[in-house]
Structure formats: structure tokens, C-alpha cells
């Protein structure tokens, strides 16, 4: 009994000691002097007699605003502002990231000239090929405070990001810069809005031409003179595309009649919906529209092309670098539904196998011009209009922009104002024009479009004798060398008219999901797994299967009976 009693006492002592230690630790943590609380009482009365501004009133005068923000930051004890930038897209569109790097240098220079002792540092420059994957990463990391401060991506994500509060509402700031906004094409500014509020500035846009291989057209007997006019007038429709594609294949001029993009139906293939007179969005009800007639006709065209062996039935699973681009640049297809950026991508990426050397290389600008003709996306059938589809990219600002800097909670407004001024500067005509010429995207500002017409400026850019910081020059040197050419500038000028015909896919929270259903349906009709009518019903079944999506979608029209193609 005594032994057991002793054992119990040992446990009692052990428990008491543990309890005392825990209580002591808790007490120590609570009683520890708080560094943040102590700071103002010791320093503020002596060093800052008046409270420094936590925000400034933007005036619309860029240099003045930048200097004022810089002074306010300096007065708050900030000497360095860190931002990160995330951009995505094709290999030549790196200015989506380096544009911000260049702006940081330009603002630093302004501050230096005005005696403001603050500097912007771009800490993380992330550039990904897959813009959708980067958007998904942004979604997952933004709430954790780990996403980029600047997010340069498609406008189509603005609705979700704005709804969730993940990007900054810049309406009030932008209103102060109305003269700048006037220089943007107005349709592009509309694309930056969600429920009437502005969430970004346009970074670029593009058109999606139908490329026609000239030598294959010659072999087939297709006369290309004035074809773009015929397309514009609706005289050359998708029935003609089919007929010529068939002839090209039958005559052995090309392995395929048509090749198009893979993976997603958005944004390339939904052009068919507009080409057949359909719509994708009802602004009055704020709903995505499923237009049964237009979608049926689109899927019928895909189905017909694939069944007749004119379009690869597994194109949605093709490899970009090994199959799609090599097929186009090697002349193995008559038609290709592509994008303006293909024009320079073919020059910088080694998709072409030179028959003389049997080695892969990029095309020369002269070769691209000599081999490819381009038009609008033709009307689906007579009586309908040709189209193109644009997916403007936007300079967006993280709603937590500046969070990696000191006193963020206190100076949030200043960091946001500075971030806005950064994207204002990133819209400088030369930055926009450089991006346009090296990536074959269309300029978003009239001033940038004018700069592209300036051959002296182009020559200087070719030799990198323009005002860019060394880091940016080094990053774009090879691309500039391969792409800055009068032929490419001429191409951009020539496709500019397509913007008059452009459509935008809806920036609606459920649209990405509906676009996935479209892609699945296209894949199924191409592979012959479903006929067009079954595929339309498949899309409708998918929409109706989820009550939340169903509530956001409006189904209109009927599958036409007796409609024939071509």
C-alpha cells in the first residue's frame, strides 16, 4: 500500500509540474511586451509630428499622382514597394510580365528625378503557357495571399474574380483617367466590366482568322483574289470551305481539308455559334444562352468534316507542337482556324521541318507571307455574317495587392493606388506596340496602333535602340530579332479591320462550365460517338443535370428539321 501510495504521489507531482509549466508558458506568451504596440509610443511623437497620408486623391495627371503616392509612402517610412506579377499566354507574349517590370523602372526613374526615395521592386515574375491553368492557380492562392499582385489574363475570368472579391475594383481610380480611357477601343473597355464596375485595363486583343495555305489553294484551284471581300460580304460561307476542303483532299493536294485548335471549345470554336447567327449571352437576364439551332449547325459542320475525313476526328487531343502547328506550316491542310498570334509564333517556334536540311526551324516572315492567306471566319450559311472572336487580355490588380509590404493594413489604399498607376503606365503606347508586334496581337490603344505604322520606330525596336531597361531588353531580344519586321507590322495593320466584326464570349460565372460541355460535345461528334442532334441534347442534359448551372442558363431555339450541309 505504501509503495502504491508513493507511486500515486509521483504521478501527482508529475501532473502538477506539467500543469505549472503549461500555465507558465501561457502566462509568458500573454505578458510578453507587444512590439507593434510599443513602437508608436516611443517613436511617433518625436519623428512624425503630423499624421502622414494613408491615401491620396488621384488627379489624372500621371506624373503628379506617382510623385504624390511616392511622397506619401516615404512619409510613412516606406522605402521599397514589392509587387509580383503573373502573366500567361503564347511564347511571344512575355511583355504581359515584362511590361510591368519596365513600368517599375519608369516609375523609379520619375521618383528619382523628383527626389522621392522609394523604389518599386518586382519580386516574382511568373509566366505560364497555359492561361487557364494559371487562373486556376490564382483562384486557389489568392485567398491565402500567395497570388500575384498583378494578374494578366483573359477578361473572361473577370466575372468570377470580381464576384469573389479577388481583384480590385478600379472604377473610381479609372474615372480620374478618362482621357486615357478615351484612347482605348470602347468595346474593349466594356469587356473589362462586371455589373457596371471596371476591374482591369485592356492589355491586348486579337482576331481569329481563317488561314488558307496558298500553295494548297493553288493546287486545288481555289482563287484567293478578293476572297477576303467575298467572306466579308457573306458570299463565301462554310459550305464553300467544306467544298474546297473536300477538293483539296480528293485531288491529293493536302492530307487534311481543315485543322482547328484543340482542347477547349472556348474561344475558338464558339465562333461557329455567331457565324450561324446564334448568341451566347442574354444581357437582360444575365444568363448564358444555349442556342439549339446555331449549336446544332456548328456540330453538324464538325461532324460532316470529320466523317468525310477532312478534319482529324481526334483533333481535340492533338499535340500542339508535334501535330497541330507542324501540320499547318508543312502545308498538310488547306484551311486552319487559328489566331493572329500564330503569325509570329510560326516564326519563333521550330514547327517547320525544312525538306532540304531535314531539320526543324521557325519560318521566315517572308515565308509566312508567301504561304498563308487569311480572312475573317466565314458566315455559317448564306444570309449570315462573317465573324471573328476576341478574347482581350486584361491588366488586373489583386485585391490584396501590396500585401507583402510593411504596414499593409494601414497603407492598403496607397499600395492599391500605386498598383493602379502601374497598370496605367503599362498601357503606354510603346509597351503596348512592342507587345503587339512581337506577339501578333492587336493593339488596344489608338496611339499604339499609330506607333506600329512608324517605320523609324520599328527599325529602332529591331535594333533595341529604344528606351527599355536592360532586363526587359534581354528578355525579349530573341523574340524581337525574329519578329520585328515590316511584314509583321503590315499583317497587324491588315487584320485590324476584323475587330469591326468581333464578338466576345460572355464573361459569366457559369460560362467556363458550359464551354467545357461544348468541348465534350465537339469531341464526341468528331469521333462519331454521337450525331449532331444527340450532341446538342447531351449539352442540354449536362446543363440540366446541375440545378445551379440550369438556373443560370437560358435554352432557346429548336434543332432545325431538314437542314442540310454543305
Amino acid at each position, binding site marked *: 500500500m505504501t509503495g502504491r501510495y508513493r507511486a500515486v*504521489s509521483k504521478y501527482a507531482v508529475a501532473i502538477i509540474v506539467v500543469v505549472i509549466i503549461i500555465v507558465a508558458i501561457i502566462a509568458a506568451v500573454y505578458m510578453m511586451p507587444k512590439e507593434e504596440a510599443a513602437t508608436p509610443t516611443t517613436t511617433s511623437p518625436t519623428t512624425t509630428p503630423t499624421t502622414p497620408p494613408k491615401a491620396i486623391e488621384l488627379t489624372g495627371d500621371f506624373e503628379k499622382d506617382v510623385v504624390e503616392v511616392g511622397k506619401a509612402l516615404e512619409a510613412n517610412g516606406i522605402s521599397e514597394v514589392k509587387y509580383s506579377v503573373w502573366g500567361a499566354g503564347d511564347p511571344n507574349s512575355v511583355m504581359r510580365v515584362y511590361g510591368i517590370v519596365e513600368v517599375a523602372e519608369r516609375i523609379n526613374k520619375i521618383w528619382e528625378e523628383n527626389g522621392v526615395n522609394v523604389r518599386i521592386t518586382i519580386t516574382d515574375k511568373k509566366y505560364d503557357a497555359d492561361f487557364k491553368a494559371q487562373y486556376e492557380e490564382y483562384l486557389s492562392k489568392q485567398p491565402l495571399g500567395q497570388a500575384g499582385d498583378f494578374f494578366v489574363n483573359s477578361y473572361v475570368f473577370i466575372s468570377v474574380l470580381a464576384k469573389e*472579391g479577388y481583384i480590385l475594383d478600379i472604377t473610381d481610380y479609372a474615372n480620374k483617367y478618362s482621357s486615357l480611357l478615351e484612347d482605348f477601343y470602347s468595346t474593349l473597355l466594356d469587356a473589362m466590366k462586371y455589373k457596371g464596375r471596371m476591374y482591369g485595363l485592356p492589355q491586348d486583343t486579337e482576331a481569329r482568322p481563317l488561314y488558307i495555305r496558298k500553295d494548297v489553294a493553288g493546287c486545288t484551284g481555289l482563287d484567293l483574289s478578293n476572297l477576303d471581300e467575298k467572306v466579308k460580304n457573306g458570299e463565301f460561307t462554310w459550305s464553300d470551305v467544306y467544298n474546297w476542303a473536300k477538293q483539296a483532299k480528293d485531288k491529293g493536294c493536302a492530307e487534311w481539308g481543315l485543322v482547328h485548335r484543340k482542347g477547349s471549345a472556348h474561344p475558338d470554336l464558339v465562333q461557329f455559334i455567331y457565324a450561324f447567327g446564334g448568341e451566347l449571352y442574354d444581357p437582360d437576364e444575365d444568363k448564358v444562352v444555349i442556342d439549339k439551332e446555331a449549336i446544332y449547325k456548328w456540330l453538324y459542320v464538325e461532324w460532316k468534316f470529320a466523317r468525310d475525313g477532312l478534319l482529324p476526328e481526334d483533333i481535340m*487531343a492533338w499535340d500542339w507542337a508535334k501535330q497541330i502547328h507542324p501540320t499547318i506550316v508543312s502545308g498538310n491542310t488547306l484551311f486552319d482556324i487559328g489566331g493572329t498570334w500564330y503569325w509570329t509564333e510560326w516564326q519563333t517556334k521550330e514547327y517547320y521541318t525544312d525538306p532540304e536540311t531535314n531539320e526543324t526551324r521557325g519560318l521566315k516572315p517572308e515565308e509566312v507571307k508567301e504561304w498563308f492567306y487569311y480572312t475573317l471566319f466565314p458566315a455559317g450559311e448564306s444570309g449570315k455574317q462573317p465573324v471573328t472572336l476576341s478574347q482581350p487580355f486584361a491588366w488586373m490588380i489583386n485585391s490584396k495587392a501590396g500585401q507583402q509590404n510593411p504596414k499593409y493594413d494601414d497603407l492598403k489604399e496607397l499600395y492599391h493606388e500605386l498598383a493602379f498607376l502601374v497598370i496605367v503606365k503599362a498601357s503606354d503606347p510603346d509597351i503596348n506596340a512592342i507587345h503587339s508586334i512581337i506577339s501578333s496581337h492587336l493593339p488596344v490603344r489608338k496611339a499604339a496602333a499609330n506607333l506600329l505604322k512608324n517605320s523609324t520606330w520599328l527599325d529602332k525596336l529591331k535594333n533595341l535602340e529604344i528606351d527599355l531597361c536592360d532586363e526587359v531588353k534581354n528578355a525579349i531580344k530573341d523574340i524581337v530579332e525574329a519578329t520585328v519586321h515590316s511584314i509583321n507590322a503590315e499583317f497587324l495593320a491588315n487584320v485590324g479591320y476584323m475587330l469591326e466584326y468581333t464578338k466576345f464570349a460572355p464573361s459569366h460565372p457559369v460560362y467556363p*462550365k458550359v464551354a*467545357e460541355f461544348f468541348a465534350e460535345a465537339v469531341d464526341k461528334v468528331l469521333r462519331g460517338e454521337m450525331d449532331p442532334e444527340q450532341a446538342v441534347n447531351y449539352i442540354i442534359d449536362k446543363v440540366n*443535370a*446541375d440545378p*445551379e448551372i440550369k438556373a443560370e442558363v437560358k435554352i432557346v431555339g429548336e434543332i432545325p428539321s431538314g437542314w442540310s450541309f454543305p
Partner: protein
Amino acid sequence: MLYKLNNFFHKLYRFEALFFLIPALIIVFLFFILPVILSVYISFTPLKNWNIGKYLGEIVGFNNYYRFFYMIQHDPGTRSVFLTTIVFIAVTLTINVLGGLFLALATFFVYEKASAFIRTLWLLPRMAPIAVYSLVWYYFFHASRIGTLNSILLSIGLIDKPIDIGQKIIPWGPWSIIIFVNGLVGVSFGMIVFTSAINNIPKELVIAARVDGATNWQISRRILIPLMKWHILYVTTWQLLSLLTTYAHIFLLVKWNLVHRDYGTTWSLYIYNAAFTGTFDQGLAAAAGVILVVIGGVLGWITLKILGFDRMITRPRGDI
């Protein structure tokens, strides 16, 4: 007073086991129980787009469960996910357990150095990074001339144009690919456990059987397999639950369009897709996940019952 205090600690003495278990219990609670509680809670919220601050406090009752069952009812794609899951688990589990058993027995009867080499070879799929391993099979099964299988079949003249196993031969084409790829990875696990089990069986039993003229098959069937019963039980249960929740290889094969989206997607991949792609519907994904956990628990319990887990953990009688 001192007596009362000592009496109090005397009572505590009974809880000494609990006292020492507390660290382990905290870990179990944090990493095993809490995630389940959180999943159940999230399944009652409209959480989407990772927006915890906005949606986590909002309760929508059984709405996500309702949506989930509504989709099963109305979406043929969702239905095929369940069929795929059943076939995938049944066939892959059989391959994993029987394949592992066969390899362990086969390597037991061959020369030691050769058996070590064979075992290492079968471990390669498990050691290879998932992306690399999946990429190998992506190019192997690719539906064009760049696919190894197609290029071999074309060169020996068995086919005149490439075949698209994963997309065209529905549903067995995609099923075959995902079962094949996961089967190869899973076999090595059973092989290791069974090899270790065989090595612990007293060699005298095998030698005595050999002296009596028993064949390899008879030794396996009458001696080795009966003595490995509990190991087979363990591997079967473990692999069943693993297959129910595995999706990494399948995710890549579907993403790269090698296999059909509907007939290449298993339940766990469906949950991943719901949570992390498209509309980022984490509430719906949590509801589907909770049901998967319940089914996993029931299946695990049934497996243990059928294979007699109770008998394995019965206390020894002490009268040996």
C-alpha cells in the same frame, strides 16, 4: 486534506494510459478526425472558388447532396463515373492482389539474385514520379503514329491505321488503360508484403514438403498461401481503400485526352474535378467526398468481416 488530494490522484492513476495516449490522440484528431469533420461541414456550405471567408459561414442544408444525386439521376456522364469506379476497383484489386501473390511466390522459387532483380524491376512503376510514369504510358498508347503501340502494330502490319484505344473503344478501351497503368503500380505493394511474409515462414515446412515430393504448386497452395492469410487480408483491404481514393495517374491520362473523359474518370477524380476545375465547387465535392468516405468505410468493414479480421485479433487463449 492531504488524504483527499491523494485520493484524487489515486483516481487519476486509472487514467494513466490516457495520459500517455494524449499526444497520439491529438495527432489522430488533427489529421484524421478533423478533416472528416471539416469535409462533412463543408458539404453543408456553398463553398466555391476557395472563398472560405465568404461562404464558410453560410449553411445550405442538404443542397449539395441533393445536387449530387440529381446529377447522378440526370447526367449520363456522372453515371458512367460510377460504373467506371466499380469496374476499375474490382479488376485492379484482383490484379494487384493476385499479381502481387504470384510475383512473391514465383520469386520465392527462383534463384535469389534473379528474384531480387525481378522484384526491383517491379518496383520501378512505384518509384517513378507520377508525371513521368504517366507520360510513358501516354506516348505508349497515343492514338497516332507517335504512339509506341500503334507504331509497332503498324510496322508489323497488324493494323493499317492507328487505333485509338482510350477514346474509341468504349468503354473497355479507357478502362483497360487505367486498369493496366494502376495495376502495374499496385502489384509491387502486394509483392513486397507477400515476399516478406513468405520469408518469415519457417523453411523447415517447405523443406519437409520437398522431401515428401511436393511440387511448387502444392507447396504454394497447401503451405505458403494458408500461412499468408492475414497478409492477403491486409493487402486486399488496404488496396481496396487505396483504389477507391486514387486518382493521380488517371487525372493525367484524362487531362491529356488519352482516355475518354466519362469512362476514364473514377469517383475520386470526379471529386477532384468538382473541387479544383470548372466552377471550383468545393461544397459539391465535399458532399461527394463524404459519401465516398461512408462507402469506403462500409466496404472496408465488409472486407474485414468476409476475410475474418475478428479471428485474427482474438486474444490468444494462453493454454498453448
